[in-house]
């Protein structure tokens, strides 16, 4: 087992909406600094699992631990990049203001100057500093996604969670997004949630698949699958190098050999 501290752990977690069992006996963990992918088809329970991590829902059975405590208490350590599909293009807001939102506190107010400085730094990190004053609605889909990454980075998170980061994105934008994420690999725990079941970015250390049902259970569970590099994967199709998910090679969900990134990169 790895000696690297654990960032996120699910232990025998079950969750249901009223009588509808969504997740049942989910066990897996992610180490600090690890780059993981959580893949599963639509309706498999990805969103529910994400809500449990973000502390927006509570499990009825089992335990979720985020950096050693309840997600509700530690969710401020998460930099969350949502899909934001219900985004209103008529909302008047600049790129800088969207990013500044990443440092917003629950009820108190901070000085605007300090928030502006942090927001500009985060925008530079995703190479979008020159677009700070632009209206957010004028950006392309790919640019908007990187602005949301910058927004997640503002508060200096220990873990980045990206929900379907490459949905409706062209290969060039996808490559730029993963180039940005590469900078944080090993330093920040990164979890990507996606419905793309076959391939993941080559940055990925471990892949967890959601959707399988154990015999006699109604809810879905999470299993870990093996990954192999795809030598012949066209980079323009996968936004850079890719790894193939081996769905027929199942690893125990808690199995890991993560060494803090010494053999990855």
């Amino acid at each position, binding site marked *: 087992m790895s000696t690297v501290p654990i960032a996120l752990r699910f232990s025998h977690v079950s969750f249901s909406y009223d009588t509808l069992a969504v997740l049942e006996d989910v066990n897996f963990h992610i180490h600090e600094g690890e780059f993981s992918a959580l893949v599963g088809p639509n309706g498999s329970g990805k969103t529910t699992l994400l809500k449990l991590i973000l502390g927006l829902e509570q499990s009825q059975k089992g335990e979720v631990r985020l950096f050693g405590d309840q997600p509700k208490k530690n*969710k401020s350590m998460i930099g969350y990049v949502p899909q934001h599909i219900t985004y209103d293009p008529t909302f008047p807001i600049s790129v800088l203001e969207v990013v500044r939102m990443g440092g917003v506190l629950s009820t108190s107010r901070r000085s605007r100057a300090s928030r502006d400085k942090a927001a500009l730094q985060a925008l530079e990190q995703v190479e979008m500093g020159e677009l700070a004053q632009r209206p957010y609605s004028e950006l392309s889909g790919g640019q908007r996604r990187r602005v949301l990454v910058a927004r997640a980075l503002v508060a200096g998170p220990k873990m980045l969670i990206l929900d379907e980061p490459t949905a409706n994105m062209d290969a060039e934008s996808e490559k730029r997004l993963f180039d940005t994420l590469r900078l944080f690999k090993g330093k920040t725990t990164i979890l990507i949630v996606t419905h793309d079941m076959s391939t993941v970015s080559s940055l990925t250390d471990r892949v967890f698949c959601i959707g399988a049902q154990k015999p006699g259970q109604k809810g879905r569970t999470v299993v870990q699958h093996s990954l192999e590099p795809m030598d012949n994967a066209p980079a323009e199709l996968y936004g850079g190098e890719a790894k193939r998910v081996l769905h027929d090679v199942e690893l125990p969900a808690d199995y890991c050999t993560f060494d803090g990134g010494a053999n990855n990169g």
Partner: protein
Amino acid sequence: MDNLLGFFSALVNPDFPFVRNALVAGLLSSILFGVIGAVVTVKRIAGLAGAISHAVLGGIGIALYLSATGKVAGITPMMGAIVFAILAAAIIGVVSLKAKQREDTVIQAIWAIGMSIGVLFMAKTPGYTDPSSYLFGNILLISTKDLVLLFILDVVVILLAWRFYPQIEATSFDEEFAQVRGIPTQRVFLLMLSITAVAVVLLQTFVGIVMVIAMLTLPAGTAGYWAKNLASMMALGTIFSAIFSFGGLAAGWMLDVPVGAMVVVIAGGAFLGTAATRMLVTYSRRRTLHNDKS
């Protein structure tokens, strides 16, 4: 021209305090319309505000009936309005947060039932009560005490908007992200709804239900075409609202027509005119781009 001069001389004439009061009321309510209107517009809860403002008529009708029949002495239409506004806001708030599926049905039901209760009770109220006087109000009947109430609400709303601006902006732009950041989004939403309800009650007794809902949406909507952010939308909405109120008051005076209806027509004209101009500009830009490419 003589009419316009007449309006200005009425404004400074000490014998006509109601004209000056109406102007001050218009300016003071512009702050509420601009700030709350911007939030209502970006949060897309104009339907909710509409339902609350119309449901208030039920409370007014019951209060008029109880007072005129002597069943409850001293009850004023505003008291009835407050009770109904709180009831409507509570029901709508709970339904919006808990049962998303039937939200629109419940909102329309509250809208229609509230108004109908008002009409029924007014019909049974001794003497003649005209429901339309509550729909359009009469800004010329405003008293100095009412102006003080308006001023207090202005101060409260400006303070709340300034203090919680980052939270209001985040909740309106991306509610899920705001929740992850620990913002109590449900409480922020209920606070927005309550403030809207209180403002609606106060404003509708002065300017009428139709004008309240029109002015909560039209100046902010017009400002939305120019504003760079939520704060400038609030500021521009306030300026537009003040211009529309002043224009409506002047035109109402000069043409001898109801001021409330005049303000709504001016605000509506400005909004539709801006929207049409924007559509034409976008269309012609797209055509130019298309022609350049082909």
